C-alpha cells in the first residue's frame, strides 16, 4: 500500500468508523440505562430511510430530507419504548430481547405491506459522489462529510452528558438506577431520554448510511444493528467510550481488510473481521473497556 493509498483508506476508515461509532453509541446508551439490548434498533435506520424517501417525494431540499430522517428515528425510538418496552419495564433481559425482535419484525412487515419488498432509491446530492484531489491523494467528499458529522455529533453528545443536568441524570442512572431515582431522577423521563438520544444517533447514522447505499428496503436495518452490536461488544457493552472505540476499530478493520486481502478472499472480509472480534473477546470477554455497566 502506497502512502497516498494509506491516507485514502485512513479517511475511509474514519468515515465508516464514525457511522459504526454513532450506531454503537445509540445501542449502548439504552443498554447502559436500562440493561436492555434493543434489536429493533436497526429498524430505526430503515425508518430514517423511508422518512427521507417520503420527504424527497414531497420535494424537500436534501438538508430538510436529512433532518426529517433523523427526527423520524428519534420519535420512532421514543414511541417504541413507550408502546412496546414500558409495559415490560421490570421484565427479564430475555423477555425484553424477544420483544425487541418482535418489534423489528412488525416494522419490517409494515414496510413490506405499505411500501414494497423491493428496494427504493433514496436520492442524494451528486456532490456526495465527487472526490477531491489533494496532491496524490483522492478522497471522496462523502467520506469527509461523514467523518465531520460523526465528530460533531460525538462532541455534542459528550458536551450534553458532561454539562447538562439531564446528561448528568443519565450518567447517574446508568451507574446506579435505583439510587438515581432516590435522588429524584424520574425513571420514565431518563429512559425516554435515553431512547430519544439513541434514536437520534441511529437517525444521524441512518442518513449517512443512506448516503452510502442510496437505497432502502424493509430489511435495511439488519446490517447496521449487527455492526452496532459487534462494535459495542468490542468496547464493552454499555460503556460509551468503549462503543465509540469499538465503532472506529470495526470500521478500520473492515476497510483495511478490504484493502489488503487478496481478491479471491474479498468476499470473506466480514468473516475475517468477525474472526478478529472473536479473538478479542476470547482474551477479554468483557470487551476492551468493559467492567460492568457504566457511562463516559
Amino acid at each position, binding site marked *: 500500500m502506497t502512502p497516498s493509498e494509506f491516507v485514502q483508506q485512513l479517511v475511509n476508515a474514519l468515515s465508516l468508523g464514525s457511522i459504526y461509532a454513532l450506531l454503537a453509541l445509540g445501542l449502548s446508551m439504552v443498554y447502559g440505562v436500562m440493561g436492555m439490548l434493543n434489536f429493533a434498533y436497526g429498524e430505526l435506520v430503515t425508518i430514517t430511510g423511508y422518512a427521507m424517501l417520503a420527504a424527497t417525494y414531497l420535494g424537500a431540499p436534501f438538508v430538510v430530507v436529512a433532518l426529517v430522517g433523523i427526527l423520524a428515528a428519534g420519535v420512532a425510538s421514543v414511541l417504541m419504548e413507550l408502546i412496546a418496552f414500558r409495559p415490560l419495564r421490570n421484565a427479564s433481559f430475555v423477555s425484553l430481547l424477544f420483544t425487541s425482535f418482535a418489534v423489528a419484525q412488525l416494522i419490517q412487515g409494515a414496510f413490506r405491506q405499505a411500501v414494497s419488498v423491493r428496494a427504493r432509491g433514496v436520492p442524494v446530492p451528486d456532490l456526495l459522489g465527487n472526490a477531491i484531489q489533494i496532491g496524490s491523494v483522492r478522497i471522496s467528499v462523502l467520506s469527509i462529510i461523514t467523518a465531520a458529522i460523526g465528530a460533531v455529533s460525538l462532541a455534542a453528545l459528550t458536551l450534553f452528558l458532561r454539562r447538562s443536568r439531564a446528561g*448528568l441524570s443519565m450518567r447517574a442512572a446508568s451507574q446506579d438506577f435505583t439510587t438515581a*431515582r432516590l435522588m*429524584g431522577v*424520574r425513571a420514565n423521563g431518563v429512559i425516554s431520554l435515553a431512547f430519544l438520544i439513541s434514536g437520534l444517533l441511529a437517525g444521524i447514522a441512518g442518513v449517512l448510511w443512506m448516503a452510502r447505499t442510496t437505497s432502502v428496503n424493509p430489511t435495511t436495518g439488519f446490517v447496521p444493528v449487527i455492526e452496532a452490536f459487534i462494535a459495542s461488544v468490542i468496547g464493552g457493552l454499555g460503556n460509551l467510550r468503549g462503543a465509540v472505540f469499538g465503532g472506529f476499530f470495526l470500521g478500520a478493520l473492515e476497510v483495511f481488510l478490504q484493502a489488503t486481502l487478496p481478491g479471491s478472499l474479498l468476499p470473506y472480509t466480514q468473516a475475517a473481521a468477525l474472526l478478529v472480534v472473536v479473538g478479542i473477546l476470547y482474551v477479554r470477554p468483557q470487551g476492551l473497556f468493559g467492567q460492568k455497566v457504566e457511562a463516559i
Partner: protein
Amino acid sequence: MTDRSVTDPLLAVDGLTVGYGSVLALRDVSLEVAAGEIVAALGPNGAGKTTLLRTLAGALKPRSGSVRFDGSSIVGMGPESVVRRGIALIPEGRHVFPKLTVQENLTIGGITRSDREELRADAQRWLERFPILGERSGQLAGTLSGGEQQQLAIARALMSRPRMLLLDEPSLGLGPIFVDRIFELVVELRDAGTTILLVEQNVHRALAIADRAYVLSVGSVVASGPTESLVEGELERSYLGIGQPG
C-alpha cells in the same frame, strides 16, 4: 414494653407488610416519628430494618399497610416522588455514584430543585462543612475512602433539603473517628430541624443520640419507647432471638 403515641406525627406507618416472593420481610409494622425527633430502628441482621427504610422511600412496594407523611399518603409512590415530598434516604453501603465527581454527586442530590443559585450555595456549604470533600470536589467519588463516601452520601441527600432523613447503617464499616463525626452531624441536623429515622447496628451509639427507638426482630416491632425506658433486657432478647416479648 412501653409505648408512647406521638400526637400529630410527621411520619405515621400503620400495619406495614412487605414481602419478597413468599418471604415476609416486614409483618404488620406500625411506627410514628414526630417532627424534630431522632428515632432509631434497631434489631439484628435480617430484622427488616433496611426493608423498612427502602419501603418508606418508595424503592419497595408494600403488600399492605399505610404510610402517611405530613398528613398525606405516600404509599405506592415511586422514589422520585417520595423525595419530592421531602423524604431522603441515605442507603446502606452509601451508593455514591462512583464515576461521577464529588461535585456532580452533589448536583444529582439537588436534581429535584430548580433554584440554581441556592443550589450552588448549598453545594458550597457542604463542601466547606466537609473540608475533605471540598479538597476533592473534582475527584471521582469512587476514589474516596468509605468515611469520605459516607459524608458525601449524607451531603448528597441533604442537597434536596429534605424535611425527613432516613439513614441506613451510616456507621457500617467506618473507623471510630468517622463514626463520631457522622453521629455529631446527625444531632446537628436534628437541631437544625430535620427529622431523622436512623437504622443502626451500633445500638449504644444510636441510643445515645435517639429520642425514641423501635426494636425489630424477624420483621416485627417487638419493643418501642423513649430510649431511657428501653431496658437492656428487651434489646438483648430481641437480638439473641430468645422468646418474643409482648
